[in-house]
Structures are given as C-alpha cells and as structure tokens.
C-alpha cells in the first residue's frame, strides 16, 4: 500500500464528517487495489482529498463517474471561521494542489459533492462545468412535518399502499440485483451494476451500520419492489430502487421512500433522492417536498482525437 493511502485511511478513521463516498473504506470495498487517492497535506494535516478510479478504454486513460457513487471529485476540509476572501484563496490552493497531482488522462469527468461550489480554479485549468440537481429533504427530524410536505397525491398513494403492502428489511441483495437485471432486459439493455460489487457494498454497509435494503411485499407475499439506501452523519442517499413491472401501479415505491425516510431519521439528518434532472422523474422526486439542490459536473478532454470526436459531451 502506498503511503498516501495509509495516511488517507487513518484520516478517514478519525473523521466522521466525511461523506460516505469520500471514505477510504468505501473505495477499498468496491475497488480493492484498483483505485488511488490524491492528497493535499499541510504537515500532518490533510486539507483536501480526491480518491479516483483510473480506467482504460481503446488505449485512452479516463476517469469517469463510478456506479454506486452519487458524488466523487474533490473533498475539502475547511478550517473553522474563515473570512470570505480567505476561504476563496484556500479553495484555490487546495484545488490547484490536487489537480496538479492528477495523472495524465485523456478524459476526466466527475460529479462533485453539492458542498463544492467554487470551480474557478478548475476553470483556470481548462476544465468545463455544468450544473445538475438532486432533491434533498433538508430536515427529517420531524416526520409529521416531512409527511405534511409530501404532495397530496404522494400521501394518497402511501395511504393506499399501506393497506395491502408491508415493508421490511431484507438481506436478499441478490434479488434486488435480479430485479434490476430484469428491468434492464425489458428495456433491452444490460444491467450496468456489477453483481459482486453490489454484494460487497451491501455487506460493508450492513457490517458498518450505514446502509439498509428494504423489501415491499403484498399479503400474498409477492415482491413488489426493493430499495437500497445508505447513510452517513449528514445524509441518507438512495442508491437503488427497483419495482417489478407487474406491480408498477401499486404505489409500493412511494411507501418504500416513506419507510426509508422514517428509518433514516433515527440515523441521520437529511434525505437525498440522488436524482432530479430527468424530465419524467423530476416531478416524482419533487413531490416529496425536497429542495432542488445543485451540484457540479466537471469535465476535461485532453486528447485532441477525443476532442475531434466531440467526446467532451459525455462518456
């Protein structure tokens, strides 16, 4: 193991305020030895990190968004009580230090955490940026208020589903994977998620009490849908939701979201739907009363061949 990773591991162990997706253990669980991390250290202090996974395609090296990660990119650890101007120059220093250590890649694209709001240092290094959105319920401590803020139709769907459908925790992550696969088959695509990775992640979350799989069944024991969500100190995040096509009008997913929010409120403060830019789904996410929260998609195409192919648009 290289010394950066060791330092990073120790830093993460003593630091619960780091979001789950920026932790040593999360990367180690999903990628074993096939990932790396860039650090900005000030003496013994780490002020910025960027874990990343380098991939190769057609001879091009690239860093792309990974599945099972809502956010990646740079995480900055700010000192307390910084003035506006100090904070901005601190961000510039940390971001520039990290980017200067980035290995040479033909293509870089990462979606940054919503708390990353100043991309200028990356602009000065010829990166591009665009804004995406997720919906976040900012306070799940009072469940009555949360429920009251759902739109009427959501509340109605939940009340209806409650009559026939029950929710319970499940360890059957294989079933969630099979259901995802089935959905993909129906749409004539292949499931993008690697089964082993999903199982490893599930086991990691179970062991560390930072994730849970829920299953929705009717009285005849038919599985309607499944829902896998994870959490850290600040937020819960939806990772996978899947509904059996036969039961897609039975509102089990509405009930699953509600149950997940209720259960998450004992562990964390906010609930992130991890989505909200696809036109047909946006209304669905919005109706749970979350706040439309921007986050940055940042990219750079270094290869002139890829540029000519206009690769900069997406993968």
């Amino acid at each position: 193991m290289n010394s950066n990773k060791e330092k990073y591991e120790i830093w993460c162990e003593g630091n619960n305020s780091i979001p789950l997706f920026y932790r040593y253990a999360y990367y180690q669980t999903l990628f074993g030895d096939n990932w790396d991390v860039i650090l900005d250290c000030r003496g013994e202090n780490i002020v910025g990190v960027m874990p990343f996974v380098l991939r190769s395609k057609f001879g091009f090296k690239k860093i792309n968004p990974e599945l099972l990660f809502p956010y990646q990119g740079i995480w900055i650890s700010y000192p307390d009580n910084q003035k506006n101007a100090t904070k901005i120059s601190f961000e510039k220093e940390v971001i520039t230090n990290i980017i200067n250590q980035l290995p040479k890649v033909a293509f870089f694209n990462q979606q940054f955490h919503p708390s990353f709001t100043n991309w200028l240092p990356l602009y000065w290094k010829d990166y591009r940026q665009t804004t995406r959105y997720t919906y976040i319920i900012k306070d799940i401590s009072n469940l009555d208020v949360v429920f009251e803020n759902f739109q009427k139709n959501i509340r109605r769907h939940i009340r209806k589903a409650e009559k026939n459908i029950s929710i319970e925790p499940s360890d059957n992550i294989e079933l969630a994977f099979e259901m995802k696969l089935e959905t993909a088959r129906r749409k004539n695509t292949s499931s993008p998620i690697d089964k082993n990775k999903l199982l490893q992640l599930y086991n990691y979350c179970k062991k560390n009490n930072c994730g849970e799989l829920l299953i929705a069944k009717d009285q005849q024991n038919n599985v309607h849908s499944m829902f896998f969500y994870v959490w850290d100190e600040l937020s819960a995040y939806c990772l996978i939701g899947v509904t059996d096509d036969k039961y897609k009008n039975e509102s089990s997913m509405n009930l699953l979201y509600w149950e997940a929010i209720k259960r998450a409120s004992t562990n964390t403060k906010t609930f992130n739907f991890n989505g909200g830019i696809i036109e047909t789904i946006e209304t669905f996410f919005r109706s749970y009363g979350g706040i439309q929260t921007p986050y940055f998609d940042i990219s750079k195409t270094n290869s002139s061949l890829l540029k000519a192919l206009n690769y900069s648009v997406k993968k």
Partner: protein
Amino acid sequence: MNDKELFNQYCSDNKNLPYFFDYAYYQTIYGNNWDVILVEKGGVVMGIMPFIIHRNKGFKVIRPEFLLPYQGIWINYPANQKYNTKIGFEKEVISKIIEQLPDVALFRQQFHPTFTNWLPFFWKGYQQNTRYTFILDTNLPINEIYANFHNNTRREIQKAEKELFTEEATSISDLYQLKALVYKEKNNSTYPISLKTLETIYSYFSNKETGKILLAKDKENTIHAAIFYVWDAESAYYLQGASNTKFKTSGAISLLLWEAIKRTALLNSQKFNFEGSMVENVHRYFTNFGGKQVPYFEISKTNNTVLKLLRY
C-alpha cells in the same frame, strides 16, 4: 396591448426591477432593434425575456450585450408560493418562454444570480455553466466594509489617498480615451464599444441620476484612472474601469472603487456588484474587497451545424 406595451406597463408598475430588465433601458439604447417575450396568465405577467438579435456573417445570434451584467429571463413569482409550487411555476414560465424564442443559430445569455433552475433549458438541449461575480453587502457599516478589505487593498487605498483625489466627471470621453489606450497598448486591439454607444448609455443613467463616472487625478490634474458604475433599487454595478498605463501602480482604481462603495452605501441600493471576473488576476483583485463570491448561470445553445463544428 402587444407584448412590448404590456412589458412597458409592467415596468412602470414595478419600479424595483433590475435595470437590465427595464423597458426604458432597451427602448433608449436599442430603439426598435429589440424585442421581448412575455408570458402572462389572466393579465398577470409571469415572466419576461427582453433580447436583441444580431446578424453575424449571415447567422442570427443572441449574445450578451455590452454593459449589461445579466439578461435572460426575469420571473415574477406570486407571493407565498410553496416551494414545490415555485419549482413547478418556474418550469411552466421558462418552458413557455423557450417555446417562443425565435430561431437563432446561436443563443448565449448570462442570467441573473436569482435564476437558479435551468432544467427547462436542459430538457430542450441547452447547455449551462456557472460563472461568478463578487457582491458586497453595502448595508454593513462603512468601517466594517473597509475592515473586511484585504490588507493589501487598504494599503493601496491609503497610498493613493495621499497622492490622488477623486472627482465626478460629466462626460464619458475621458474613460473612453483611457479604455481605447489600454486596448491599443495591450494587444494592439480596439475597444469594442463605440464612443457613441457609451455616450448613449451614460446619458441614460446620468439623466435618471443612477450612474456616475469617477476620476482619480493627481495634483497636476492628470487623470490616473476612471470608473463608470450605475445602480438600481437592488444593487450598484461596476460597469467599466480603466487606468492610465503610465500610473499602473498608483492604486487609483482601488481608490475609485472604494469611493463608489462609500457612495453606494449612502444610497438605497443594498449591494455593490463588481461584475466579474472569471479572469484569474482580476478575480484575485476583486476577492480582496471582501465581497461574497456569487454564482450565476451562462446558458447557451448552438442550433447551426456549421457553427457547432466550428465550436463557436
């Protein structure tokens, strides 16, 4: 009433609109060469987008106008909207405006910082990226504003105060001369705004007493620098500034900005907007005035295949 007349009516009923969404500004500066898209429901204006179409090498283009900090869409939100209703309202208004946009080869506009939801543009194939400006809260006590400046900036101002004094100018020609010189000396290029355009814009603001040109001079009455800033009910905007290349280190611009900030604090405008900048050293300079870095959206779309290939 047609859309322009409705827009005019809406603006005379809403004196607090930012100046770059004001009918009078467009009418004065652009005469008949502008248009507006307006969305209304039951006689109530819900959204407006004034715009100017340029013809560039045979292509129709909507692009940012000189001396307008922001353009794009202004949304008139009903009072007391629930959050979810508000997002739905934005979606409706923005989509209706996009539907009415004329067919142009290139669209590019910089939107007001309050415009934070560009999804309806995304769904229509537009692109977005985030830019930044610096905004100072001029409601704060003036000594607190000054204390928030970086040491270097305060030192620069103190030094400049010993050698220079500031005064109001009554014409924009001194600023124009300085600007033209800066452009010429930099890359032998031409200042892209004509004196006539500058004069039209300046007289629009000076007639309304909502804009000023300040000069920094030394004891020999030599002009070291000039700035032009304007204000509306919401904010003051630093639009243009130039310093005499011979006196680059005299801190004259910092002195003038400080003077403009002091004057803004005495007005009803609540903010001082530095208008930029994405340029690294300008950004560092503005950072030192202690304002807040505020994001705003640039939204664009290239409809023409030839322009796309040229990565216009």
